[in-house]
């Protein structure tokens, strides 16, 4: 019978002036030939992740013998403000490469899988293109570009339940009444912060995937039902990047019943299991 692995969690401060903060989870003994996972912030949410998903993943993988760092980019969570602003829509975050340096310094591990939701997915992708220590990426609701089949699927859904779609249009046109609120929507919006950057040109993203495929980087692409207005059938990934030969590097994890922030525990567990499967391949 296999003995359970003891796990440890330690605070890791790194970067210039140690101003980046993360938690490194892992087994109590280190195998420096293994692969570590780095979890990137989703938008403005701090490193514990939507519905604490980053913590669950890190602790599950630690019990399986893998190290995981969940950390905050500059200006998010507990990390200091700073970092470089860039006009390049595909600029890699330097903090992610600094995170790899920090894990190597702490454990000796030299190869990494990057995982992220939403903007974290895109940041994982951009870093993987320029940093060859990355051997795999896992993206939840990353870039999406509609293909022809997308519109057929959308039409089919409309024909199945036209009332529901017309109601959605009505709500978008006229808005929902905001009850029990003495303040204007404009004033309220001043205090709600949301982060959803524009996608770069598809050609740039496609070139990026070609770079990753040529470097044998493995890709786990998860899409949830929340992004069905952009991604609505399982194999859309292949058609939207039809000029990329993914060989056998790509795994699609299509979860149409899951929400973007993974509010159902079983959905979070499914993603964690897929990540574990991926890590075991290295």
């Amino acid at each position: 019978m296999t003995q359970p692995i003891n796990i440890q969690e330690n605070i890791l401060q790194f970067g210039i002036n140690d101003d980046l903060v993360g938690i490194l989870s892992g087994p109590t003994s280190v195998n420096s030939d293994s692969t570590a996972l780095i979890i990137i912030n989703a938008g403005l949410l701090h490193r514990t992740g939507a519905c604490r998903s980053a913590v669950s993943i890190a602790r599950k993988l630690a019990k399986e013998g893998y190290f995981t760092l969940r950390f905050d980019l500059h200006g998010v969570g507990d990390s200091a403000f700073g970092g470089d602003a860039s006009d390049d829509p595909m600029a890699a975050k330097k903090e992610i490469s600094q995170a790899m340096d920090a894990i190597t310094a702490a454990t000796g591990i030299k190869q990494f899988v990057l995982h992220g939701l939403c903007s974290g997915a895109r940041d994982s992708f951009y870093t993987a293109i320029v940093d060859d220590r990355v051997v795999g990426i896992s993206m939840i609701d990353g870039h999406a570009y509609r293909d022809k089949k997308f519109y057929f699927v959308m039409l089919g859904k409309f024909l199945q339940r036209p009332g529901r779609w017309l109601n959605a249009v009505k709500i978008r046109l006229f808005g929902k009444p905001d009850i029990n609120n003495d303040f204007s929507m404009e004033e309220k919006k001043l205090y709600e912060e949301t982060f959803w950057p524009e996608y770069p040109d598809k050609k740039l993203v496609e070139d990026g995937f070609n770079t990753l495929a040529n470097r044998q980087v493995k890709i786990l692409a998860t899409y949830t039902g929340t992004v069905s207005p952009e991604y609505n059938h399982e194999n859309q990934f292949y058609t939207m990047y039809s000029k990329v030969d993914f060989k056998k590097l790509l795994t699609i994890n299509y979860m149409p019943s899951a929400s973007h922030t993974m509010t159902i525990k079983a959905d979070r567990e499914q993603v964690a299991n897929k990540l574990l499967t991926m890590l075991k391949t290295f």
Partner: protein
Amino acid sequence: MKPFFIGDSAKQIYTTLVPSKKRAATCAVILFYPYGQEYMRAHKAFRQLATQLSRKGFDTYRFDYPGTGDSYGELTDVSFTTVVDDSINVLSNIAATQNYERLIAVGLRFGALVAHACMKSSDKLDQLILWDPFASGKHFIDENETMATASSKDTDEWNVHGFELTKCFRDSISTYSILPISDKKIEMVISFDNENSETIQKQFNNTIPTILQGPKNDWNYVDMVGSILMPTKLISCISEHIDQSS
């Protein structure tokens, strides 16, 4: 900012200190987070409040309850009692390692219930600010019941915006109420008048000092992408108030 763990490796409580930027602090402020999705929405606001207080000469602490954030355990394994007991341990640890003259607690929503229970059960806290508080455990449960997924309501484990609220947890908090504590200074800061603030006023015979600073904060709100809330006016209002009253 200094992050550290309190407790042994099996029961680590993740804590952060934003030290005073002015002078050696004689007074510390401890921030008590709300529950579940509201914790995610409030994290940046708490950091902002801690930063403002540090500029005014206060050491400011934040910590994750067991089963939340980077602290040990799962929400399914903790109760209100566990949360309060671990919070008191945090307060004791802070009091033992630093010789502060005063400890002030700011508790947001569910955090107001926890901070109040800590003040009631230990002598560590001198002042408590209830921020958009729940008036009682019953109010907390009732509001979360309206937000729990339909499929989870018939089970012991409610799913509220992706966070578990177990029957054990609900039972442990159901009879708790925010009431006056003799010789303790308790105040309230609210973003709008509501049933909770009115109940607390009644429970204090309309004597609890209250500051109203809008606009209304929807803490228990969730959108598809996980937006956060940063009520800048209210945060400044709290830090100014603590500075003036200390």
